[in-house]
Structures are given as C-alpha cells and as structure tokens.
C-alpha cells in the first residue's frame, strides 16, 4: 500500500509541472509587459530600462524564465502584492482556511445527502422515490450556483430574515456564541455548494449501485440468507463506491468553480474572492499564484481519491 501511495505521489509531480508550465506560458504569451509603464515614462532613460530588463531576466529565452519562476515558487518566493501590500504567500495562507472550511463542509453535506438518497433510489429503481430523486437531481445540477445563491438570499435573508447574507471574519461575540454565529453565517454558502454537489453525486451513486446490484455475488449473498441491509451496505456499497470516488475527484475543478462563485456572492474572504478582486485591480502576481493554488488543490484531491481508490479496491494497489 505504501508503495502504491508513493507511486501515485510520483505521478502527481509531472502533472503539477505540466500545469505550472501551462500557466506560465499563458502568462508569458499574454500581451502586456510588466515594464510597459517604465517604457512610456520619459524620466527613465533607455539604458536604465535595458539594465532593469537584464537584471530581472526579461530578455532571457522563455524556458530559462520558466525555470527561474519555478525555482522561485518552490522556494516560497511567490512575489509581492502591490494592492494588499504584503507577500503573496502570506496573503493566500490568510485566505485559504475560509475556502477550505466552506468547500469541506459542502462536500460533507453533499455526501450526507447523496449516499443515502442514491443508495435508496438504486434499491428501488423506477419507483416513485427514485423518479422524484432523479428529477430533483437533474434540476439541482442545472441550477447554476450563482442563481441558487441569489434565491437563497432572497428567501432566507430578505424575505424571512433568518440568516445573514454577508460573511464576516470579525464576529463580535465570544465563546459559544462565536461558534454559533460562525455556523449560522456558513449555512447558506455551504448549502448552495453542497446541494449543487449532491445533485450530481446522487446520480453517480445511483448508477454505480445499479451496476453492482445485479452482479452474481450479490445474489449469492442474498441466497445465503443475509438481510437486505447487510447485503446493501456490506456487499454492494463497498464496491459501488469505487467508481464514485473517481467521479467525485473528476468533479473537483467544478467544485472550485462553484466555491469561487459562492465566495463572491456571500463575500466570504477566501482565495476565490481574492482571485476576483485581484483581477479587477490588475494584481498579476496574486492572480497567478491563486490560479496555481487552485491547480495544486485539484491535484491534491485527485491524489487523495487515488489513495482511497487503492484502499477500497486492493487489487489496484497490488498492480
């Protein structure tokens, strides 16, 4: 198993390098020059400009610049945000917990909905429950997160006035009230993201369960006289979860997209809203770094899925 994990880790490295290369070359190909402001400034003589360009290596061949950049990133030198007046890595570390908190709780909520609903729907295919669940799931993933977010605000904040629609980090209360307030303000963003996730997950779970439930070994288990609950949970679910794990991992880029939108709607100070505000204020180092962090998170979750996959299906880690 540890060998399998190690192999997966080694496979993740080339894909991280590939992603970083894609990001860097996109940035390098983009029109616009960090020194364009200097070039139009009459007070800076051309020799100084040339010296500065040479000093920062802007005239080097592109692969050298990429290696320089990669080396700097690996050393934790992520640049400086001129808008926030602080180092980019510190800025991101400050914002990351809020994003992970919302995404993590949303995933848990999605699993808590999707697994029971999907499993129950698969045990009674084409029943009334199955049809209702299916239709709701279909509607759920056709509703874009920005619209559900606005609908939730309209219903729960504006009309009913139950929940706050702006997320704050400086809650005045202390102790238990602080915790309660933290939970209360996270309900809507987590629900928006979690329900969206739950919709597609329910479909994955249902179809994976249906694939497994017809297999012979399930009939054998029933013939041995095992109860329905035991057959479903111990025999069918464990095998049905294997493809579901992969499908959930493949969904991660979409989850981050949804999180970005949710953060923007509810003004959660996470890295998603940081990305938007840096784009609006032309803060290129932050834009670059946040995109890279998102890419790293996707690779990380793929890695976790691979490890889970190996644990659920030992045949894979032996190969």
């Amino acid at each position, binding site marked *: 198993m540890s060998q399998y994990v190690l192999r997966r880790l080694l496979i993740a490295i080339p894909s991280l390098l590939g992603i970083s290369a894609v990001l860097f070359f996109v940035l390098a190909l983009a029109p616009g020059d960090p020194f364009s402001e200097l070039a139009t400034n009459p007070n800076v003589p051309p020799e100084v400009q040339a010296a500065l360009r040479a000093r920062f290596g802007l005239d080097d061949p592109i692969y050298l610049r990429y290696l320089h950049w990669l080396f700097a990133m690996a050393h934790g030198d992520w640049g400086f945000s001129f808008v926030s007046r602080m180092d980019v890595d510190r800025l991101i570390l400050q914002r990351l917990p809020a994003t992970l908190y919302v995404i993590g709780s949303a995933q848990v909520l999605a699993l808590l909905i999707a697994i029971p609903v999907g499993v129950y729907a698969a045990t009674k295919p084409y029943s009334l429950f199955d049809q209702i669940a299916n239709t709701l799931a279909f509607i759920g993933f056709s509703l*874009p997160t920005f619209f559900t977010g606005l609908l939730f605000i*309209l219903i729960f904040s504006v009309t009913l006035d139950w929940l706050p629609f702006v997320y704050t980090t400086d809650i005045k209360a202390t102790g238990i009230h602080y915790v309660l307030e933290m939970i209360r303000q996270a309900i809507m963003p987590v629900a928006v993201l979690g329900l969206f996730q739950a919709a597609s997950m329910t479909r994955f779970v249902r179809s994976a369960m249906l694939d497994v439930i017809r297999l012979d070994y399930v009939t054998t288990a029933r013939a041995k006289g095992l109860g329905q609950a035991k057959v479903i949970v111990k025999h069918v679910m464990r095998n049905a979860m294997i493809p579901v794990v992969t499908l959930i991992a493949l969904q991660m880029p979409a989850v981050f997209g949804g999180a970005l939108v949710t953060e923007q709607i509810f003004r959660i100070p996470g890295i998603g809203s940081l990305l938007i505000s840096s784009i609006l204020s032309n803060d290129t180092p932050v834009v*670059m770094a946040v995109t890279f962090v998102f890419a790293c998170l996707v690779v990380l979750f793929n890695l976790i899925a691979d490890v889970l996959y190996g644990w659920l299906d030992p045949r894979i880690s032996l190969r």
Partner: protein
Amino acid sequence: MAGLTLASPSAERGVYSPWRETWRRYSRHKLAVVSAVLLLVLILAVVFGPFIWRVKINDIDIVAGLQGPSLTHPFGTDDLGQDILARMIYGGRISLAVGLAAMLVSVFIGTLIGALAGMSRGALGHGLMWLTDLFLSLPALPLLLMLIYLFRDALKAMFGPEGGIFILIVLVIGGLRWMPVARLVRAQFLSIREKEFVEAARALGASPVRQVVKHILPNALGPVIIAGTIDVAAAIIAESTLSFLGLGFPPDTPTWGRLLFDAKDFLDIGPHWALFPGGAIFIAVVAINFIGDGLRDALDARRVI
C-alpha cells in the same frame, strides 16, 4: 449511427427507417420532448423577439425605475428604468450563441484529438491522452478568469468590445471543455477500428483518412452528439458565471449573467430583476440537459428500450 442497430421489435414492424427509430426512442422520454419544445420556443423568442417587442434595450426612464411586471413592461424595469424583457431578448441571443459556438469549438477540438489518439498506436496516442488528463485537472473557472484577464484588452483592440470578448469567451470556454469529447471519441475509435467492416475497407485499400471519415467517424457520432448537447448547457452556465462575476461581456451588453450581476444589489426592492434572467438561464440549461438525456436514450446502442 451508433444507436441504429436493429432492435428486433422494430425490425418486425416492416418499414424501417433509422431516423424514425431514433425518434421513437427519443419520444419515449416525455420530459425530453417537452424540453425540446421549450428550447425551440426560447430560441424563436430571442431570434424573432426584437421584431415583435420593439422597446429599445437602453431607453432610460429613471422615474419608471425598479417597477415590477406590468403591461408596459412585462418583466418590469431595472434601476434606470430600462425594459428587462427587451434586455433579456438581446442577452439571450448572446448567451445562446456563446453556448452553441463554444460547443462547436469543444466538439471540434475533442473529435480531432480523440480521433488522432484513437488511430495512432504509438507515442502520439499516449501523449495526447496525457495532455487530455492534464487539461482535466486544470481548475477551469480560475483559468478562464485568468485568460480573460490577460487577453481581454488585446482582443478588444482587434475586434471591438463585443466582438473581441465574444471570440475570447467562445475560444476559452470551448478550449477548456473538449476533454470529455476527446476521451469518448478515442474510446469509440479504439473499438470501431477493429471491427470487420473497417478491416474490409482497409483490405480494399482505403487510406487512413478515408477509413476515419467514411467508416469510423459516422459510427462514433452518437456519444459525441450527446456530449455536445450537454456542452451547450455547460457553456451557457460558464458564460453566465463570467458575466455574473463582472468579467464577461462589457457592462452595457445585457447577457443573462450580467443582468443577474446588476440585479444582485437590488434583491430587497426589485427581486423580479434577478428572477427573470435567472429563470431564463435555468430553463435553457435544464431543457438542454433533458434533451441530452433523451438523446442518450435514442442514440445509445447498448440500450434497447
């Protein structure tokens, strides 16, 4: 077509037409039929709407600002008193056009890469599949935002504010969504290229290009059509998301997402402003997804209903 293998009940019925068989299977999916009608109505409305509803999209009338639905303004007005119905008709054209064009881009790239990977037996196929997997693990929305941030001004200078953004958004959305199509096409190619009828064509001396175009591709189209349909919905959502974040089309172009972006600060006094465009996005997307579901029933050969 992949879905047109003879199913025994239809063969006994005498007159057999592949298209009729497809339609028979499609029409079993009631929601898909309803969705097709709904989408058709929506398309007709945005194409011919401006000829019937002749209110200008930028007629400002501050006095009539933020009014709810009424006879003069069926969908109400925004904060400047502009007619929301007229703006939605205009924006719907853009949203649907972006969806279609981005789908064409992604299907084209996906089919090309999938076909190349499916036909090659060497390093090229492996390399292309590695590229596909790499693209699959790119965070699409952040990257989309970054690309638009970087290339917006250059394209605006070349093609004008609306045209430039249109080209950029279509290329970027299409360019980040071709991977599922490529995987599907490759899988189809790998199995179809070993079938007897392709072998027969090869034995008769058909060149690889002819084998692909005349024999393999037509048989691999079913899944591509389904994936393409769902891509339209995904592209519409992607475009609306960009506009909703304020980073899509320029502020004076009222796409559905942009209308929501403008409306979100007026939810307490003018909820109609957000509900109509949001509802339109939802209806378009859910209809297209149901059509995709119906097409899956109709074109999937393995399923005999």
